[in-house]
Structures are given as structure tokens and as C-alpha cells.
């Protein structure tokens, strides 16, 4: 290895570039910037204001924070639903007045004051909701106007009744306790804020109405077309926002025991800035209560801090204006460009030096030398099939194969001219196997491991395994289940080829060449799925050895076959039995005479082998070139290889004509004939094997019975 290559290997194999892309796929990265701002804000103001972190100071500022967070939580819900509510400030003020007047002027009990405040909020919210939700008015302007109306009404009320409130003698312990008391050191507003935040969070993430809000905000039209009652959902978000504003209004009423011209002034722009700075998207669908809370803390700490630091009139507005503009701009730009950034950085190729291989050239004299025998295969279902990745035959000689339309098609013996859709599974059925009870087990691409009973009942067996501890992206889900086989004890061994890409992006996985393939086992006794092997380059075909004590598993991009031991001294370990093949192996199946068939989906090329030693080049390629011009494994020439129990190659079949089966992803021997499938083929091939045991069948080989 040259020094340059060694550097490349270190650079691309040791630095985990792929984590950047994986982290960017996480939705919590949206929170990272607001959280950083939060930390910086609190730290810098905490450092510059003496006594900022003293308990008493904290308690006083958190009281205000509690009230403010409640308002922001309400506004967040409205924004998640795709709207905006600027009238929170006046609803807040009106609710304060309602509570204060009920308590001081009418001298009613505290709970009546609470009911009055909440009723005010709900009514105001309902008016907003009716105008914006049902009449479809523009949220921003409409709530701006209801804000002015509410403010005007509040000003009139304060002018007329403000004096009555101040001169009232009413008092109550409960009122004072809500305003000044603490429970375990927490003031009532803080507790209220936490309770409301938790309830709202749970409702948004785990309840039907909450999902409806997110759906409407995410795509109003799709939500409408999906049958969600969009107008009612929008209406309810405004009612909720009004309710939250009124709760906050009640809290401040008890704290200040009065209402004046300053009550709730500028609250709308504060709350709006908080919601947006926290990272809630304008236009809805993206955001959370937590973001709203972070924004609330940032904004309140900053504005209060500026006042306490003695900056003059106007500084707050200036800072708020800058924060709002910057946050909105970042939000818009980030939403627009996030997927571009992700596309740019997700593919992170690694260095690999493939081993020297034997030639597969026709007439080269090696065991791998391709010939033209497969071109003699006749065809089944020509033009009717699309993508029979795997084929299998049952005891009655019927032929089954999957299609890219998510169906399992059955061709009837003996001439295989008649066919029917045996079952519709969905996804892309790949590997097939029959179990002892003649259930057809299939690895369905992008879905998981499925079982189809003889009477066509489709059942999901497994779609996930245990998550590994170091994973960033959830690797519990099976992204690319590829092939399966069944041990004598009924356990199903299957592969999941990659954790990084979905099944249709297999070409990207080959270009990246990162080892993330897994071998898994599903135990039908308890329904559990376990990961046995991890970190292989696209694990593909699986085949149980004839004695049932070990299995063979193909590692496509490394051109290797491993034997995984189920019993014996090496149980639980894997060893490489065939390496440096000239082709990329796909499915492996049993052959008569104690041998095994293995498909080559394509052949290695010197150019791609070379590119594997230049990860930087492959990275640039995926970024700068259109997909059609990428260099990835050749899949236009393949073949079928027969090997024995020790991994020695017995013979190799090919189709040099390129007409019938240039690429092969699977093959099954059945009564002296070889049935050939290919994921890009429009047929199943049938080839008469010279000198094969004409009584040998797969089901009998696995489960015994009549040969």
C-alpha cells in the first residue's frame, strides 16, 4: 500500500463522516441552534447581572417566565397548525381584567374569577378560530385586528373601572397564595407552565387531535384530502391559544392584583419572537412545545436582562426585531435547504482495497471461467413479470416468485404457462423460503420478514431487531431485508443488507461501501429477532448447509462468502470460505449432490475496484455528477456458480449472449432443472442441468418426505 493510499484509508475509514449525515437526519438537530442560543443567553446574562442565579431572584423571574411560557405554548400550538395568533396580548389583558373585576368589583370567590378569565379566553379564541378557521381569513391580519379590538375594549374597561378595582377591599388567602405562594420552592405559574407544557406535548405527539394539528400544519391540502376536518382543527388551535393566554392572564391577575394600561403590552411580539426563536416553523407542521419553551426562556432572559442592565427605552424592541428577523430568516433558509445539505453530506465513502481475483474470462481455464450455457435457458412468464428477485418451488412443483409490484406470483406445474397472484404483500418481495409447514417465508424489501400461509394469509414476522448502542439513526428497523433461510429447528436466518440506505438506494450503498450489513435470526417460538453478525458489506444470500449445522452467507460488495456456525466448536462465529471472487454474490441455494448454487448479480470491473481505493473521488462523484453517470458495480453480466461444502468452486455458468440471463440474483434446482431469477429481469429462466439428480427437490432436501 502506498503512503497516499494509507493516508486515504485513515482519512476515510477512521473519521466517521457518515455521522454528520446521520445526525442531520434527526429532527432534534432543529433544536440544536435554539439550545445553543439558550445556553449562551442564560450564561452571558447570568454572568453580567449580579445575583441572577440567587434563589429569590430566580423565583421572581420564573414567575413571570411561567406566565409567559403558558402564552407561548398556546401560540406554538397555533403555529404548528399553520396559523398565527397575534391577539394573545389582548386576550391576556382581557382575561386579567375579567379575573380582577370578578374578584375585586363583584367580590366573587377565586374560582369564579378563574372561570371568568378562562371563559373570556375561550370566547376570544373561538372568535379568532371562527374567523380564521371557518371563514378562512388570513391569520396574521385577522388576529392583528382582533388584537386591536381587544386592546381597545381593554383600554375602555380600564379607564372606566380601573379605580373601582384599586379601591376594593376584597381579599382571599387562595388569591394571595396563587399570586405569591410556592409549593416545594416552585411558584404556581411555574407549576402551571410545566403541567400545561407536558399535557400539550403529550397531546401533540401522542393523540389524534394533536396529530391532526401537525398534519394540518404540515400540509393543509393533504390533510383536507385525507379527510381531516381542517377547519375545525384550526378553530380548536385558536381556542386553545385563547385558553392558554387567559390562564396566564389569571396568574398575573393574582400576582399583581390589578390591571392597567401596561398589562400585556407588547406581549404578542414577545410571544411570537419566542416561538420563532425556539425554532417553530412559520407555516406550521414543524416544531414542538419544548422549542416554544426554549424560545420563551431566551426572549424573557434577554429582555429582562437588558432592562436590569440599565439599557434605555427602545433597546428591547431593537433586540427583539433583530432576533425575530434572524430567527425567521434562518428558519426559512434552513427548511428550504436542509434536504440539499443532507444530500450533500450523507454519502460518505470508505476506502477498500479489493483482493486480486482469478479471471472469469471464457476459456481462461479457471474455475470461474464463464460460458454460454445460461443462454440456452427457456423462459417462463416472459413479459408478465417484473423483477423476480428470487424463485422457489413447492412440493407440487409449482413455481413462486416475487415482483416489484409487491406480489407473489405462482406459476402452475407442469408447463408453467398459467399463473396467478398468489398473495399481495406490498413492498418488494425478495428472498423466499418454505418452512416445515409449507408457509412461504419472504424477506420483503423495505418492509421486513413476512410469512404467507398455504391458504394465502399474509403475516408479518419481524420488522425490527434490537437497536445497537452506538447507532445514531435508529438501526432497529430493517431497511433492506434481502434473503432468508430456515434451520431444521424452525429458526429463520435472514440478512438486512444495509443500515444506511433504503432498498432502492442500493447503488449508493455500493458506492459508499460502508460495512453495515447484518445477519439476523427470527425465532418463531417467541417471536424475537436477534442480530448475529453486523458490519459486513451488503450481506445478501443465506443458505443453510446440507447438514443444518452451519449456514453460508454472501457478502456482495466484498465478493466473499462466509460460513456462520450454528453448532459445534465454532458456534456463533463466522469464517470466510470463499474470497476475492470475480463477481458480486447474491442468493445462495442448495444444489443436488451436496453442493450449493450461488448467483452473481454482476461482475467486478477494474475501474470500480480502483474507485474503491479513491473514496474522495467517489464522494465528489455523488455530489457533482448526475446519477446516470455514476460509476457503480456492473450488473449487466452475471452468472451462476456451484460450490461444494468446503467452498471450492465446482463449475460456473454464464450467458455471454446477454439475451436471456445476463444478471442473476437467484436460482433453484428442482428435479434436474435450474430455475433462474433476476431482479431486473422480465422472466424466470429454466435450464436443464446435465447429469443432475432428477429426483432432488428443495422441500425434500430441507424437510424430508418423498423425493
Amino acid at each position, binding site marked *: 500500500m502506498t503512503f497516499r493510499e494509507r493516508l486515504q484509508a485513515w482519512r476515510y475509514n477512521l473519521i466517521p463522516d457518515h455521522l454528520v449525515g446521520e445526525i442531520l437526519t434527526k429532527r432534534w438537530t432543529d433544536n440544536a441552534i435554539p439550545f445553543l442560543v439558550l445556553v449562551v443567553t442564560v450564561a452571558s446574562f447570568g454572568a453580567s447581572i449580579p445575583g441572577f442565579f440567587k434563589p429569590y431572584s430566580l423565583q421572581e423571574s420564573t414567575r413571570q417566565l411561567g406566565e409567559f411560557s403558558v402564552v407561548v405554548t398556546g401560540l406554538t400550538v397555533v403555529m404548528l397548525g*399553520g*396559523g*398565527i395568533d397575534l391577539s394573545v396580548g389582548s386576550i391576556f389583558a382581557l382575561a386579567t381584567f375579567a379575573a380582577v373585576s370578578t374578584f375585586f368589583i363583584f367580590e366573587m370567590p377565586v374560582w369564579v374569577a378563574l372561570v371568568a378569565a378562562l371563559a373570556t379566553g375561550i370566547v376570544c379564541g373561538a372568535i379568532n378560530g371562527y*374567523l380564521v378557521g371557518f*371563514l*378562512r*381569513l*388570513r*391569520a*396574521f*391580519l*385577522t388576529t*392583528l*385586528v*382582533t388584537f*386591536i*379590538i381587544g386592546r*381597545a*375594549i381593554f*383600554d*375602555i374597561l380600564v*379607564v372606566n373601572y380601573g379605580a373601582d378595582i384599586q379601591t376594593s377591599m376584597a381579599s382571599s388567602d387562595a388569591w394571595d397564595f396563587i399570586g405569591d405562594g410556592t409549593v416545594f420552592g416552585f411558584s404556581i405559574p411555574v407549576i402551571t407552565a410545566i403541567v400545561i407544557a407536558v399535557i400539550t406535548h403529550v397531546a401533540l405527539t401522542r393523540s389524534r387531535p394533536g396529530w391532526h394539528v401537525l398534519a394540518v400544519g404540515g*400540509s*393543509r*391540502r393533504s390533510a*383536507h384530502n385525507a379527510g381531516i376536518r*381542517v377547519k375545525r382543527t384550526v378553530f380548536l388551535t385558536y381556542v386553545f391559544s385563547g385558553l392558554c393566554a387567559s390562564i396566564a392572564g389569571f396568574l398575573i391577575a393574582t400576582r399583581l392584583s390589578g390591571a392597567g394600561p401596561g398589562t400585556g403590552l407588547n406581549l404578542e*411580539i414577545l410571544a*411570537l419572537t419566542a416561538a*420563532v426563536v425556539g425554532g417553530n416553523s*412559520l*407555516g*406550521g407542521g414543524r416544531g414542538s412545545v419544548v422549542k416554544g419553551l426554549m424560545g420563551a426562556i431566551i426572549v424573557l432572559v434577554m429582555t429582562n436582562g437588558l432592562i436590569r442592565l440599565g*439599557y*434605555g*427605552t*427602545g*433597546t*428591547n*424592541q*431593537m*433586540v*427583539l*426585531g*433583530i432576533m*425575530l*428577523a434572524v430567527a*425567521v*430568516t434562518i428558519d*426559512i*433558509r434552513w427548511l*428550504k435547504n436542509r434536504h440539499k445539505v443532507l444530500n450533500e453530506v450523507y454519502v460518505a465513502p470508505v476506502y477498500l482495497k479489493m483482493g486480486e481475483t482469478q479471471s472469469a474470462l471464457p476459456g481462461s481455464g479457471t474455475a470461474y471461467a464463464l460460458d454460454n450455457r445460461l443462454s440456452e435457458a427457456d423462459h417462463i412468464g416472459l413479459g408478465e413479470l417484473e423483477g423476480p428477485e428470487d424463485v422457489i418451488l413447492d412440493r407440487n412443483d409449482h413455481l413462486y416468485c416475487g415482483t416489484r409490484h409487491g406480489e407473489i406470483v405462482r406459476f402452475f406445474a407442469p408447463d408453467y404457462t398459467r399463473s396467478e397472484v398468489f398473495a399481495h404483500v406490498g413492498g418488494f418481495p425478495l428472498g423466499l423460503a418454505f418452512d416445515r409447514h409449507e408457509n412461504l417465508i419472504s424477506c420483503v424489501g423495505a418492509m421486513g420478514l413476512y410469512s404467507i400461509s398455504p391458504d394465502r394469509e399474509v403475516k408479518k414476522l419481524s420488522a425490527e431487531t434490537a437497536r445497537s448502542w452506538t447507532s445514531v439513526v435508529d438501526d432497529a428497523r430493517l431497511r433492506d431485508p434481502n434473503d432468508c433461510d430456515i434451520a431444521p429447528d424452525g429458526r429463520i436466518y435472514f440478512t438486512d443488507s444495509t443500515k444506511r440506505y433504503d432498498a432502492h438506494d442500493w447503488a449508493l450503498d455500493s458506492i459508499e461501501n460502508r460495512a453495515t450489513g447484518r445477519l439476523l435470526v427470527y425465532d418463531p417460538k417467541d417471536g424475537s429477532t436477534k442480530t448475529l453478525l453486523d458490519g459486513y458489506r451488503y450481506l445478501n444470500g443465506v443458505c443453510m448447509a446440507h447438514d443444518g449445522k452451519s449456514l453460508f452467507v454472501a457478502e456482495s460488495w466484498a465478493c466473499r462468502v462466509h460460513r456462520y456456525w450454528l453448532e459445534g466448536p465454532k458456534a456463533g462465529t463466522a469464517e470466510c470460505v470463499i474470497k476475492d471472487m470475480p463477481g458480486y454474490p447474491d442468493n445462495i441455494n442448495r444444489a443436488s449432490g451436496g453442493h450449493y448454487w450461488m448467483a452473481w448479480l454482476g461482475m467486478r470491473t477494474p475501474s470500480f475496484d480502483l474507485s474503491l481505493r479513491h473514496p474522495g473521488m467517489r464522494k465528489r462523484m455523488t455530489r457533482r455528477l448526475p446519477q446516470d453517470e455514476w460509476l457503480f458495480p456492473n450488473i449487466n453480466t452475471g452468472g451462476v456458480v456451484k460450490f461444494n461444502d468446503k467452498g471450492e468452486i465446482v463449475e460456473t455458468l454464464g450467458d455471454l449472449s446477454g439475451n436471456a440471463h445476463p444478471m442473476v440474483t437467484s436460482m433453484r434446482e428442482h428435479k434436474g432443472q435450474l430455475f433462474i431469477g433476476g431482479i431486473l429481469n422480465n422472466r424466470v429462466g429454466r435450464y436443464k442441468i446435465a447429469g443432475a439428480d432428477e429426483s432432488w427437490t428443495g422441500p425434500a432436501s430441507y424437510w424430508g418426505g418423498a423425493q
Partner: protein
Amino acid sequence: MQGGVPGNDMKSWLNWKEMNQERIVLLIAILIFIVASFTLPGFFTPDNIVAIVRSVSVLGILALGMAIVVIGRGIDLSAVAIMAMSVAWYLQLLNDGMADGAAFLLVISGVLAIGLLNGFLVAYAEVPAIFVTLASGSFVFGYVRSQLIAQDAVPVPLGHWMQLFGGVRYFDIPVEVFIFAALAFLIFLFLRYTKWGRYVYFAGDNPVSARNAGMPVRPMLVLRYVISALIAFIAGLLTAASLHSINTRVVNSTLLYDIVLVAVIGGIGLSGGKGGVRNVLFGAALIGIMLNAMTIIDIPLIYQSLIKSSILLAAIIIDGFLNPRDEQTAQQGDI
């Protein structure tokens, strides 16, 4: 939209089937005017009518700027802040002894900068206009108030041309009325006869098609916000000229909503592409007559504000019915 008030085809103009918001507004304005003339003492006098026109001139000028932006499917919530704060800064510089020319250049470049910034964020960063201008309005007020001027109100320095300018009258009509008329005529010419003026309608009606048709949609957007900022500056100068000082507290008043009210109530659809200078004139007429009548009846300011905002809400609701939005065609994030 056609310019000028039609005169000789009154009959077809009053046809019920041809009714639209603009005509309704004009009729209501005339109706209120007639009723007030007969019932309110001192309403139908030359002095009062001049006072009405004068009171709406500044509002009307600001509404002209708003109209250009709204026709192009935007909104400018920073207009009042720019109006008050630019002039306050200008007067503060003069009071601090800076030469008039230098101060004026400095301020007008500041005004242009804010207009450009608004336009840039809306056009190129694709941030909704409503947020850009809300934020920039807040910033302009906060920055000027905290950094550049000393107190809420800044007086016009003694002997400055603005002091004299405020008292200028032709035919007993104050000068700002003429300026309002001249600006209205200029903007009418711009919107009606210049290429970019026509483009404002196309871009407001359907920005994507306008862009696909090859119009410079983004530079035009920037231009509109710059025009709006400049018009706000002119309105501020006139205000200072007539009051001999500028009070920055006007930013926190409901003036901004009065501007939107004048534009919207005159029939300039908020979804863009509709309306013209005539709508602003009608809207301003209605608001001017109404405010004047309410003042004569002696309705307190806070009630006036309630009445105005209720009318604005009604106008928005009517606008919603006249220009309904559809679930299938509404744009995501169009708030």
C-alpha cells in the same frame, strides 16, 4: 383599474349588479357626509372640509406607499416606524448642529437601507413580508430610540425650513394636501403607464407566472419596499412640518392599522393584484369623514379606536368573501 372619478356615466356606475367594495365605500362615505352635513353643527363648513382633507393627507400618503406594496402581494408593517424614526433622527442631527444637507443625506440613505433590507429579505431570503417588516419596524424604532435620539419627541429647530413649510397655504388649503394630490397623481402614473408599474399587478396577481414570463420579480419587490420607505419618510417630514415636532410614540399607536384600514377598505385586496390609487382616495375619504364626524360628536379616542378596528375587521371579512381562498389552491405557509 381605471383612473379618475367617472362623472357622466353615473347611471351604469350605480347599477346594483356592478357593486363592488370600492363603490360601496364611496357610497357610504357620501352618505355619512350628507347625514353629517345636516345633523352635525359645524361639519359642512369650508374650514372643516379643509380640516378633513388635511387630516387624511398624511394618512393617505402613507396608504399610497402601503397600496403599492399590497398590490404586489406584500405588506409593510414598518411604515410608521420608518416615518417617525427617520424624521426624529433627522431632527436630532439638526438639533445637534449637523449641516442640513449632510443630515438629510445621512437620513435618506438610512431610509433607503431599511427599504432595501426589507425588500432583500422578502425577495431573496423569501421570508414572509409580514415578519420581515414587523421585525424591521421593531428594530428601527428600538435602534433609533435607544441609540440615536434623546427623548420621545424631537422638535423642529427654530428657523428651519420645515417650520415655515408647515404654514404654507395656497388658496387657504394647506400645502400637504397638494403634496398628497401630487404624490397620488405620480403613483397613479407609475402604476398605470410605466412598465414596472404594470408589472406590480402581474407580480401581485401571480408571482410565479410573472417570474416565468421573465419579469424581474425580485428586483421589483425590492423597489416596492424602497418606494414605501421613501413615501413614509415624506409623510414623516410633513407631519413634523405641521406639528413642529415629531413624537416617536406614534409608532406604538394604531396609526399603522389606520393605514392598512385605508388601503383595505378602499378595496385593495390583500391577496394582491387588485386596486389602485383611486381605492386609496376613497378609503381615505371614508376614514377622514368618519374620524372628523366622530370627533365632532365628541367620541373619546379609545372608542374611536374600537370603532375603527371593528370596521377594519368587517373590511377584512368582506375581503375574505370577495376573494375567497380555496383548500386546493391555497399556498402552504400563506398566513
